[in-house]
Every structure is written in C-alpha cells, then in structure tokens.
C-alpha cells in the first residue's frame, strides 16, 4: 500500500533531534510530562509548531502512540499542528478586553502588521492570533508576544512601541 518512506524532513534535522532528545531526557522520558515536553519542543521548532514528523519522532522516542500525541497537540490552544511564525502575537479576545475597548488595539495591530487576526505575514515573521483571557484584565487591553504580556495598549503609538521590540 502507499506510504511514504521519507528520509528527508521538512524541519527535523540532526541538531533539532538532539535538542528534542535533551528535552525528553530532562523530563526523564516521563509520558505524564507530555504536555510540558510538547510546549518545550514547540518553542524550539522554527515557526513554533509541531508537524507530523516531530510528533512521530517524539512518539517513537517516548513510546507514546502517535494518535495520543496528536490528540494532545490538537486539544490545547498553546500547541499547534500548523506553522505559526517567528513572532506569535496573541490578542486577548476575551470579554474584559472587549468591554474595555480593544478595537483600537486590534485595528492598530492589523494595520501595523498588514494582516488580519488569524493570519500570518507573508514573510512568516508575525502571526496574529486571537486568544482566550490570559489574566491581564487589570492592564486591559493587552497582548502576549511570544509569551510576554503587554498591557494598557490603548493607542497605535503604544502598540507600535511594543512591536518595535520584535523587529
């Protein structure tokens, strides 16, 4: 039957495989640490995602069924099976940021990046993702860039200042 016996990989290489090995070893190859391991691995994969070849590699290394790894990847919002970007900008989409007026923030981001929410810039550098409340309501409206929170973004100038850190 048809199946691809691929020895060429899109993102996996010796260096990345070695880093993944280290992450798995640091977590004692403990299958209960899968969620954390996947987060750590995703952070070192270019474009911050977990393609099939990586999941299959982890599946084999940790002796966890690929289907279970996929269930985990597809379930959690912080894990992605499709390419994201070098810089992932998460716009809080929650009700608190909405009532406090995140329209300016959203429009500024879209304008400055030249993409809409849920899109990735053509050069693959920035992804603009909506996200659930990340608990920064006291400084709403807020965004998270590669895990770091920025708040009080009430004007285009403030948004631009944040983005300037990620050129």
């Amino acid at each position: 039957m048809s199946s691809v016996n691929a020895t060429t990989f899109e993102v996996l290489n010796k260096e990345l495989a070695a880093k993944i090995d280290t992450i798995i070893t640091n977590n004692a190859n403990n299958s209960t640490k899968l969620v954390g391991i996947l987060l750590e691995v995703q952070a070192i994969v270019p474009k911050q995602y977990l393609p099939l070849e990586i999941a299959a590699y982890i599946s084999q290394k940790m002796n966890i069924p690929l289907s279970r790894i996929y269930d985990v990847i597809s379930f959690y919002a912080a894990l992605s099976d499709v390419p994201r970007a070098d810089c992932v900008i998460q716009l809080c989409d929650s009700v608190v940021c909405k009532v406090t007026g995140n329209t300016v923030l959203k429009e500024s981001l879209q304008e400055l990046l030249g993409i809409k929410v849920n899109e990735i810039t053509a050069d693959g550098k920035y992804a603009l993702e909506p996200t659930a409340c990340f608990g920064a309501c006291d400084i709403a409206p807020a965004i998270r860039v590669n895990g770091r929170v920025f708040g009080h973004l009430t004007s285009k100038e403030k948004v631009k200042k944040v983005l300037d850190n990620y050129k």
Partner: protein
Amino acid sequence: MKNVKIIIDNKDLVVPEGTTILEAAKKVNINIPHLCYHPDQAIKANCRLCVVEVAGSKKLTPACSSFVFEGMEIRTNTKKVRDMQTGVLELILANHDQNCLQCLRNGTCELQDLCRRFNISKTNLEDTVEALPLDDTNPSLVRDSSKCVKCNRCVEACQKTQEVHVLTHSHRSVHYNITPAYEMPLEDTLCVFCGQCAAVCPTGAIVEKDETQKVWDAIYDPRKHVIVQVAPAVRVALGDSFNLPKGDIVTGKMVAALRRLGIEQVFDTNFTADLTILEEANELIKRITEGGTLPLITSCSPGWVNFIEGRYDHLLDHLSTCKSPQQMFGSLSKTYYADLIGLDPKDIFTVSIMPCTAKKYEAQRPEFEKDGVRDVDVALTTRELARMIQASGIEFTDLEEDQFDNPFGIGTGAGAIFGASGGVTEAALRTAYEVITGKGLPNLNFLQVRGLEGIKEATIDLDGLELKVAVAQGLSNAKVLLKQIQNGTSPYAFIEIMGCPGGCIGGGGQPIKSTLEVKAKRMKALYKIDADLPLRKSHKNPDIIKLYDEYLGAPLGEKSHELLHTHYHSRNKKYDFSSLKK
C-alpha cells in the same frame, strides 16, 4: 454482592449493588435510549441521551454511568426526561448527514432507530454538518465523519480492545473529531483494517468498503465464470440479518441464496481450512523436529498479519508461511480448478464471503496475483452478502436448503471451527497428534482452548512430547504473547492469534450488534457443526487426500510451496529516523 432495592417508574426492583441505572432498567424491560453505551465496552457517558430523573437530584442523571443505591427512585419517562432526550437527539441529528437512503447502515442505524422512536424527522435547528473529507482510499473501510456522532465506541475498539491506537478523539468543541493522527487516511497509518470500529459504530460513520456492485457486474458478465467460497463463521451469523435467532446455522439457505444470486459454483472455505491445517501442522512438526523458529504463530487472520507486519516486524519469522484459507482457495481456484474445468484463469471470477474487513485488504495484496490475475477477485463481508440477498428480493428464511459444490465442497469439523478463537489450534492438534504419534486421537475435544477468554493455553502430550500452546483473541491479548516472545520467556511451541475478539465469528464484517453474548451463541453453533459431522479431522477429508494425490503431492512440497505459502514484509513506517542519529 449486596443487593439494593430501587424503584424504576413505580416498579419495585432488587438488583445487585454496582448495577447501572441503564442495566437495571433493562431488567424491567425499559430500554433507556443511548448511543455511546455498548455492553462490551467501558462506560463513556458522552452522548447524554440516557439522562433520567433521580429523586433528590436537581439535574438529570446519566443512566449509563450512574450506579443504583438503596432506595433510589428513578423515572425514565417524565416530560422533563423526554424533552431533554429529544433535545439531545435533535442536537446530534443536526450535525449528522441525514441522507439515510444513501447510507449502508440504513435500517441498521442506531441513530435512525432513535429518531423513529422519538418521532423526529426534521428539527428546527440549523443543520451544521462540518465534516472532514471522506476517507475511502484503503481496500477495507470507509470513514465518513459527516455521519459521526462522536460516541467514541470506535476509539475504544481501536485503543482498548485492539490496542492499535490509530483512531483517537482530537481537537475540541465544534472541531472535536474522531480521526487518525493528523487526519491521515487510514491507509497511511498502521491501521490493521480489522473493522472492529465499524462493528461497534452506531451509525454509518465507519463502514466496510462496499464491493457488491463488482460482484453483480461479474454475475451479469457472460464471459465470467463466477464462483464463491464462504468462510466458516459466515453461516452462523448471516441469519442475524434476516431476524433469525442469534447463532442459527443457516448453511443450506446461504448456499441456496448464493445460487439464486447467479453464482455458478458455491464452495466452502472449510475445505481450504482443512488444507491450511495439513500444511500448518506439518510446518509445526518440521519446525519442532528440525529446530525452526518457535513458537510458530498462525497467519490466517489478516488483521493480525497486518498488526505484526506493522508493529512487531522483528518477529515475522514466527509467522506460519501458510496462506490463509481464503488465499489458498483463491490460488487453487485459478490453477487446479481452472485446469479441472478447462477455463482460462482470467475468466474465473473468485468471490469470497468473509466475516472480515481485513480480508478485503488481504485479497488485494500484490503478492496474491499472478500474470495480472488476482487469486481472489472480490472479498465481500457477511454484511455485503446480506445486502445482496436483500437486494435480489430473495425471502431468505423460506429458502430450501442446498449443498456446496465439489471439488471444494467438503469441509471437516476441524475446518468449521476455524471460525472460533481456539479452533485453528484444536484442528491443528487433531492432525498433529495423529501425524506425530501415528496413533488415533482418543478425545477430539480440546476444551481448554475453547471459549471467549482473551488468552487460553493448553499443554498436550504427544506421546511423550509435551507441546505447550496458547491462543489469543483480539490484538491487545496478542500483544501479551508477543511481549513474552520478545523477552524470551514464551513457553509455547504454537500460538494461535485471531485479530478479533471471539475469532472470525466476531469479525469486523459480521452483522451489526455482534455483542459478546451473540458471539458466544455463534461459537456454540460452530462447535455443534463440528460435533455433528462424521469427519472431524482435516487429514481425513477425502477431497483433501485426493487433492494431494492428484495435484499437490505432499504437504510442504514444491507445489504446495508455490501455491499455498507466502512471505511477509514490514509495513513501511512513514518516517525513518535512523538518519538523525549522531
């Protein structure tokens, strides 16, 4: 165990502690609606159709996952219960492709039954079928997620019963789905095509790949000589599709129906089952006496073969090189039989009727083809045969009994019990004993290897030679025995593995609702066929003896090797990571 008193719909009832409300209700003839509940599986409680009212509880209680307690008062039919159940059913239906007329499960669909029961035809809800693409690229199974109700029965079958771990639930909320990893088609996964998922699916979300049209086309093609073989397990299950009592033996009616369909010669796979025994028993003896790889493991279950090729390919030497009875028949039909009736093999159209979806995959393996002629042209499941009979308007239950044709019409009791887990072992032992010892077997019944237990074992004294054998049914049980071999702790000389629980009688192609209870009845029926037959040892089958005399020579001989044996290969892994090693 302690008993508890409960009240269901004003009826007093005493049931053992640990009974669920759903099971308790069955005892007073109340069938609480359900979709995810399955009597042979773990409790899931995700469809939420079985909610009932329990006195003292504000919210409704799921009947499938709630256990009775002393004094529990349950109401299964109040307005609130009905309204809620109807609502849940409407929600399921709104996300279900309602083109029932084009569905293979039309008439055997549990969702359809419930909609009829609740008198729901069309809901006020907006239909929201958001489905993945159809997966129909493999030879065995078709997955249509637009019909999936997300009950997770198939996931349980794949992960727990079979431990194949191909199907999983994935994503969340409205994107929640049942799928292989990365939405790969089954063909690209290590799916073994056992069809246990299809066997438990309440709807038409996973079905056998229907090939009935190919058979109709061959029947209507005047150039084709259409012959059929029927596997042992089909005759004790086909009756289910015609509302006959479970476990009814319908061999004669089945043969008659096949003839009415326009099949020219109706043969019995029991015959090639006997042939398999002759080859395999001799293979076992040879490996024992000449120091071959032991334990020898049976290879007649194609789901099992797919499994070992995919996941334990380092143990392939243990597999018997014997083709399965289906493929031995296929091979003989295009050689021996073609010679016998003087036809070009390409004009013979060989159909097999199997309890199994993996047989479709097996029939299409590249090694089972010679000069562009397939050994088996089409493998139909029991369900497909039932549909053909229904389509032709034949009143199955009223048919007069008919008999198999020769030269592949005689099967012994040993061939018949191939359909039940443990049957191959018992059949092989009947022959091996007499071949090795040269004595007549005093008691033909090897009761230790019969029954529905996951792993069975027996020790047989072959005139001083102690032979330890084991039998596993279902792939999770097979894994246990494989791990022993891996660890070097396997004490057995012979292992029988059937991919499906119960063996072929519980195959993925059998009529829907093959619960353990039904499987037990089918098993009993096969042993009755065996017990009632005058011939119960494969090597005593006169037509087998004749076949060797006239055509094959001796078991394991040159001709046998060419026609009746095969080889195995590792099923390609998607990725080879060896290049990444430092």
